[in-house]
């Protein structure tokens, strides 16, 4: 957007450097205060941040709903687990191949689905999610272990095993930084502008030279890749995967996090993932109430906070900085 003006702002550099230092020290701090469970939660936050950021690309930026992203999460998890165990591919590579497969599947789904309008697209993606779930539950030849699930190996890089939450946290952090950088680059480019143009007005976007179908397919594939990376991280972090994780409930959780945090932004998915996961932890004792809580969260967001938490913060900040005076142009 107005990044031309933001460039070379030393205060911003110091802030982001301090933020990074805090992220790097987080597991050490949790260990020091004897709250190692905090590290495990942080790992899950990282996984969800990536998955939800992926959905943000297709939903937040490009305006195309997907209610079936659990399917791509599953392709990432099972894909990486099977590629590494059956074909002996190093995990760090299978964690890349599986998302590529997910991206191809996403493109194949999006190509015909790109003609569908919002509510029909949401039905089509629900169907896709359900089909994938059924396929891993009753897989050909029982390759996925069906209802029993699969045990997965830990990531091992040059003899260093990421076999504890403490260690895995750093791998996850690296993934988050890498993928969020990619997302930031993408959305602020010609491609990202095409996404937003399609969301804002598909008709006009086509009239301005944007091949809407092509960019919808690109958005879907990219988002599938992100969510599948998260799935592969989940598989090799938890060490065990089963179909229960990949139901429609998971897709709803992704969307809830995104809407709750705020769409079409970098902080939105992060805030949403943290807020909903912490709430999840708080409600651990009443697990059967979770869906009810998600439902309430979604209602609150849709009715009261259309921009999510981040949108609310932005509005407050805007009101604060523009107190009294009329809005003035930046240039």
């Amino acid at each position, binding site marked *: *957007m*107005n990044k*031309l003006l933001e460039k070379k702002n030393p205060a911003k550099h110091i802030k982001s450097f301090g933020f990074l230092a805090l992220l790097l020290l987080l597991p050490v701090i949790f260990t020091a205060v004897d709250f190692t469970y905090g590290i495990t939660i942080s790992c899950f936050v990282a996984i969800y941040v990536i998955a939800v950021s992926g959905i943000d690309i297709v939903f937040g930026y490009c305006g195309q709903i997907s209610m079936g992203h659990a399917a791509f999460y599953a392709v990432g998890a099972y894909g990486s687990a099977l590629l590494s165990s059956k074909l002996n591919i190093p995990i760090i590579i299978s964690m890349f191949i599986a998302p590529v497969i997910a991206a191809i599947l996403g493109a194949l789904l999006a190509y015909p689905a790109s003609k569908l309008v919002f509510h029909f697209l949401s039905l089509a993606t629900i169907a896709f999610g359900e089909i994938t779930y059924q396929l891993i539950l009753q897989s050909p030849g029982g390759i996925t272990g069906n209802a029993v699930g699969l045990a997965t190996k830990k990531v091992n890089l040059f003899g260093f095993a990421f076999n504890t939450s403490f260690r895995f946290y750093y791998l996850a952090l690296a993934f988050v930084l890498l993928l969020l950088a*990619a997302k930031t*680059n*993408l959305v602020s*480019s*010609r*491609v*990202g*502008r*095409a996404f*937003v*143009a399609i969301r*804002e*007005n598909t*008709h*006009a*976007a*086509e*009239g*301005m*030279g*944007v*091949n*809407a179908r092509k960019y919808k397919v*690109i958005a879907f594939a990219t988002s599938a890749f992100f969510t599948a990376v998260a799935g592969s991280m989940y598989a090799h972090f938890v060490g065990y995967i089963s179909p229960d994780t990949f139901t429609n409930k998971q897709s709803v959780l992704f969307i809830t996090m995104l809407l709750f945090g705020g769409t079409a932004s970098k902080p939105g998915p992060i805030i949403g993932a943290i807020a909903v996961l912490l709430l999840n932890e708080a409600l651990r004792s009443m697990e059967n109430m979770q869906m009810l809580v998600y439902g309430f969260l979604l209602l609150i967001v849709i009715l009261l906070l259309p921009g999510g938490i981040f949108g609310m913060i932005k509005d407050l900040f805007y009101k604060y900085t523009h107190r009294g005076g009329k*809005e003035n*142009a*930046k*240039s």
Partner: protein
Amino acid sequence: MLKVNNVTLSFGGLVANNDISMEVPAGKIIGLIGPNGAGKTTFFNIVSGVYKPDKGTIVFNGTEIQGKRPYQINKLGIARTYQVINLFKKMTVIDNVVVGMHSRLNQGYFSALFKTKKAREEEKMAYEKALELLDFVGLKNRAYQLADSLSYGEQRILEICRGLASNPQLLLLDEPAAGMNATEKVELDQLMQKILKKDIGILIIEHDMKLMMGVADYLYVLNYGKLLAHGVTADIQANPEVIAAYLGGDE
């Protein structure tokens, strides 16, 4: 530059455009007038690729373009504005203009993903050019506002600016003066003259006859989907058939 030959399009039993032919040369303003429902916007939608004509050809700089998709036609050098404002509302004014440049920019997916040096340079160039264009139409001081925070008249001007961003040879303006006040109309008139100096041809639909008679070099009149008359403005003003169509006089 643009040559339309015997274009016909019907929706079910309704013939929206019937055997229409016209020509738009570079550097001229060609007006398209007619009562409501005469098929003017349908004609624009055919030329810009939204609809495919049942019959007839549209030749733009020697290439037949009928049946091509809107984004392909935009790339060939035809840009348009809309009767109902169709801006990207939640994008900034400058981003709207840069989207208009889409078909003239080269970065692909991976160069965007990794923000290569080439992509960064292209972005910088694009935003500089967008500022120049906004300056050209007089919206530079609005560059970083959201498009929907502009006044109605400014939004119409931004649509023209977004259209110009693709560096077109032909600009289709669909009722650009609708909702504008008198001062804005004068500014629009001046802007069109400036655009002509870039050797861009303009095909314009407009109900404001005063504006139209002042700017258009040549007029085509549509009525019930058919070409009723065409000629220089003075002839059209004196044409009894045209007067009858507008005033509903007896024949």
